[in-house]
């Protein structure tokens, strides 16, 4: 009764599309002619020769790994630092979260104005040294680093807040006990905070995984996938193949693979990190 409208909408626009993605990947489809030709596994066969697909996969993989490590690492440092009930720290905590509130495309353009060739960062560098001209977005390797900076900036904000919430749940007595036992800072972190922060690590890692798999807007604003196609993410490749090149079936086969990869990765992370939580 009350359940039907919600479940109907969810099935129609989330579950059915997942099934249709599987279905479409066996067809050759064009949005223009609306023709559906069954071609079996041909899309997947073609995909094995598609260099761009593997390039995008590699880019997303690199960005994901960087994001998981950097955001969690800096997030924990920030959280440990801001974990204080003084008024000033509360204000800092509120401020530090703001990057997460902003739209990814806004973040992309913020970093564009900072990182373009005559952008703010290069202007700043030229005050000290006129010789160095770094092309932050024009060089493929640099562009990847720039994208990961923009990505991590937002994710650090998120990680910090989640770790802070987790730190609040750690009983004060534990730290006192560790102090009495004469544990040093590194020991305290290794044997006290790190295991007890497991729930936050799980949440953060999963959120980072999801946001890197759907990475689109930031990269579009920052590099547009360029230079060349060197920073094109899978999401960008799928959208371009489907809506610009009108190869809908082929794009669906990429979606299906992305679905399997992202699903498997998230699932494994959840199981592995979840197990860690229980062990502690």
């Amino acid at each position, binding site marked *: 009764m009350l359940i039907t409208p919600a479940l109907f909408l969810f099935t129609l626009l989330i579950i059915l599309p997942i099934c249709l993605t599987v279905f479409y990947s066996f067809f050759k489809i064009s949005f223009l002619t609306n023709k559906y030709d069954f071609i079996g596994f041909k899309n997947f066969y073609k995909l094995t020769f598609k260099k761009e697909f593997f390039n995008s996969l590699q880019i997303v993989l690199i960005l994901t790994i960087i994001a998981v490590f950097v955001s969690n690492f800096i997030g924990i440092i920030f959280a440990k630092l801001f974990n*204080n009930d003084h008024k000033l720290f509360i204000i800092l905590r509120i401020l530090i979260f703001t990057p997460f*509130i*902003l739209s990814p495309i*806004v973040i992309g*353009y913020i970093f564009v104005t*900072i990182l373009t060739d005559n952008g703010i960062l290069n202007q700043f560098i030229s005050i000290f040294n006129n010789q160095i001209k770094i092309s932050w977005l024009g060089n493929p390797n640099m562009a990847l680093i720039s994208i990961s900076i923009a990505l991590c900036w937002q994710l650090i904000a998120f990680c910090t807040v*989640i770790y802070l919430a987790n730190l609040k749940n750690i009983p004060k007595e534990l730290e006192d006990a560790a102090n009495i036992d004469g544990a040093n800072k590194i020991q305290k972190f290794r044997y006290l905070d790190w295991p007890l922060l497991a729930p936050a690590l799980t949440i953060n890692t999963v959120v980072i995984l999801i946001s890197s798999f759907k990475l689109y807007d930031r990269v579009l604003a920052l590099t547009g996938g360029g230079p060349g196609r060197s920073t094109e993410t899978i999401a960008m490749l799928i959208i371009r193949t489907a809506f610009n090149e009108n190869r809908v079936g082929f794009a669906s086969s990429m979606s299906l693979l992305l679905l399997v990869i992202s699903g498997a990765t998230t699932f494994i992370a959840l199981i592995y990190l979840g197990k860690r939580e229980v062990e502690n």
Partner: protein
Amino acid sequence: MFSRQLLLSVLLSIIFLFPLYLVFINSFKFENDIINNPGSFPEIFTLKNYLSIFFKSDDLLVNSFSNSLIFTSISIFFVLILSSMLAFSIHFLNKKLQNVIFIFLLLGLILPTPIILIPVFTILKFINLNNTFIGLILFFSAYYLPFGTLVFRGFMKNIPQEMIEASFIDGANFFICYYKIILPILKPAAASVIIITGTWVWNDFLNPLILLGPLQGTTVTVGLYRMVGQYSINFGELYAFMVLISLPVLIAYLFLQKYFIEGLLAGSTK
């Protein structure tokens, strides 16, 4: 010890938030001032950037702002109603069915949208809702349903079973029980759902870009993208546009930040 911690925290926060400072401060500067000293306070304070994007001939700012405002509020409304109803009615199903629904909801929660965007586009086209705001709103409502339901579900656990049973004995039906008893209790959770889904919907770029198509009215994010593409843009106007379109979510966050973080934790720990 304390002052050292504070000093370090403030210093790191300043470095971390420096990009935001840049955007804000440079939106009040003339172009050559931005190029010459981007980091400093404006030499001459000006509202020129804000005025010029406001009076652009195609009304990009005003149009995209009102569009976003309308479809974001309607989407939030739908998410609120649908997910609270779902969270409430799941309560009465047997355990097995509950778990099946939850697995599907979790799948929806971790699903990156680009994967399903092609079929969503064809489905909306099939029911003649492609390139309309209604289609976009329906998609957002479906996409954020899992999040809303999980937040409400966590809250619903605190409602004593006797209370619901008592209302049925008193002759209330499902709908009255939902409306009179459940909804008022869910108010704090509703605040979380409103601020979080509101932010996500407002900020979303790819879904409106694809589902609204090139001809329909723009949203704030698509508007920003168009603006960069259309005009030979200068930094000042770009900054002013970004400040204006981020303002609603920032204000909402500052006022409701407690609910924002509680909601994120409630939704993600499930």
